[in-house]
């Protein structure tokens, strides 16, 4: 893989990872706020909070799936990499 493509891939995974981290922080806040609310006896917020949390998880999953798809498309469009290693074991 050439350095430019490697840099692009690392940029893509970095962007996806950053988005997932931001979503995760939102989800953490949502969970603690929902728990706090539930313990205070306000049960009405639990259902919408669960829906939003599930949506955030699906978004995170979609981002990860996108990264995996990009990865797979890259592998299939390139020639298979050499399987030869820097050395061989048990060979002269």
């Amino acid at each position, binding site marked *: 893989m050439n350095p430019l493509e490697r840099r692009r891939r690392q940029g893509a995974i970095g962007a996806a990872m950053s988005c997932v981290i931001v979503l995760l922080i939102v989800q953490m806040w949502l969970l603690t706020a929902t728990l706090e609310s539930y*313990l205070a006896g306000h049960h009405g917020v639990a259902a919408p909070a669960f829906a939003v949390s599930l949506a*955030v998880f699906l978004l995170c*999953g979609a981002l990860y799936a996108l990264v995996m798809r990009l990865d797979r498309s890259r592998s299939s469009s390139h020639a298979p990499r050499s399987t030869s290693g820097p050395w061989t074991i048990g060979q002269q």
Partner: protein
Amino acid sequence: MDDDRSGVAGRPRSSEGIWREEFSVDSAEDAYVQRRQFTKFLVLTSLGMACGNGWIWLRSLAAKNGPAYPELVVGRASELADGQVRMFSYPGPEDPCILFRRANGELAAFSQKCTHLSCAVYYAAGRDRLECPCHEGFFSPEDGRVLQGPPPRPLPRIRLSRRGDQIVAVAVEDKVEP
């Protein structure tokens, strides 16, 4: 036989497999793979938190039906002088509560567990408030709301009813309006 010789430069595939198993990722791609694995971990964490929210939702569905609180005689009104307290457990044996008579003669009962870190609160008759000695959290004896300190929520109030001279605990009011 042919498979054994199908590797690059005539190296046997079996020997290539050994080093490829040990060094499955090129060093140049290492950072990429680490980030991808970390992202996967984050996504699984996200799933865990969604499950947590789901659990709270299920609990709230169960609570909507309303738990059936038992009726429990917790004492006699004539036995409690102004400022006196009585401990009891309600609704279960692991739920300590405090019953007290305020200076104005009113009877009140609350859960004894502080909503901060579950320390036992006590009734300070002189100051007419419920106090948590651990972190100086104070609660109102009227409705259990937080007057001062770190407790995030009011104390759950025990609803009382009078049956002649008997004081009966009938429910826990854990819903607090902001």
